[in-house]
């Protein structure tokens, strides 16, 4: 067996998890399924047609993880290794379904021209102050906590994310919902740094707009 590249060090605790899995510790396995399951579903959804097929893909990927854990060499993190298995499984399944790979557009589904983060009519169009706010955004962090994080507001956020194109949905879910780093997302979704950033930018801008429509009244 070749040695792993010297620059890579596994995250703390990973060796113990891998050892537990190899010993057949089912609590370690169940914890891992709980931790990565939702993100795996989201990633699988980019490649296949339905939630149900995505669930099957995730299941198949875990069976691959079980079968392969004895061969895991620690060249990448366990997480990266698991998600590589997942995306390969999902791509194969998507190809069988006749779905095309979703990264046809740099913006992740908005079309080439893309769209502005904020509607153009929110800015002055001419004169010395062209490009400056006509109606400035309000300060949300000063809103009462119960309004900001209340069930209705969270519903707005959830619906806004759910209505994004698949790739944008995957990127914002991994980055902002699951708290992954940009490197992890780029690595697992095969995106360039710029591409990942543009997609995240579009996704956050749309969620912000949905929140603004709700929190500040129907101003859009």
């Amino acid at each position, binding site marked *: 067996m070749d040695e792993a590249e010297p620059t890579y060090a596994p995250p703390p605790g990973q060796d113990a998890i891998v050892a537990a899995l190899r010993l*057949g510790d*089912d609590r370690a*396995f*169940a914890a891992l*399924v*709980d931790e990565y*399951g*939702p*993100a795996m*579903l*989201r990633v699988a959804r980019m490649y296949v047609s339905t*939630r149900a097929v995505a*669930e099957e893909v*995730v*299941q198949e990927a*875990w*069976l691959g993880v*079980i*079968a392969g854990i004895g061969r895991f060499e620690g060249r990448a993190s366990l997480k990266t290794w698991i998600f590589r298995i997942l995306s390969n499984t999902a791509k194969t399944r998507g190809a069988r379904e006749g779905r095309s790979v979703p990264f046809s557009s740099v913006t992740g589904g908005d079309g080439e021209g893309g769209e*502005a*983060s*904020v509607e*153009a009519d929110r*800015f002055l169009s001419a004169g010395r102050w*062209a*490009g*400056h*706010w006509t109606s*400035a*955004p*309000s*300060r*949300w*962090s000063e809103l009462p906590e119960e309004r*900001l*994080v209340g069930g209705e*507001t*969270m519903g707005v*956020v*959830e619906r806004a*994310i759910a209505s994004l194109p698949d790739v944008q949905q995957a990127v*914002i*879910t991994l980055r*902002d*919902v*699951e*708290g992954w780093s*940009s490197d992890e997302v780029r690595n697992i979704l095969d995106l360039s*740094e710029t591409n990942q*950033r543009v997609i*995240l*930018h579009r996704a*956050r*801008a749309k*969620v*912000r707009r949905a*929140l*603004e429509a709700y929190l500040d009244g129907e101003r859009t």
Partner: protein
Amino acid sequence: MSDRDLTCQELVELVTEYLEGGLSDDEREHFEKHVVECGGCSNYLDQIRVTIELAGRVTVDDLQDETKTGLLAAFREWKRQ
């Protein structure tokens, strides 16, 4: 970047690059100078931060219980072999 100041309309398109640490020193300086002087853009940046914070509270769709049970059974089966 030129020495011309950023407009608000330009600034909102740079927010993610700013938060990701992707701006050059010069660009970041222009960005921060604008935010300090402009209440609207300061609030916009605040809104994006709140958006990120709220997204972090979303509960994501999880695997179905029967899938998890099936996987655990498969794992135990593997262990026996």
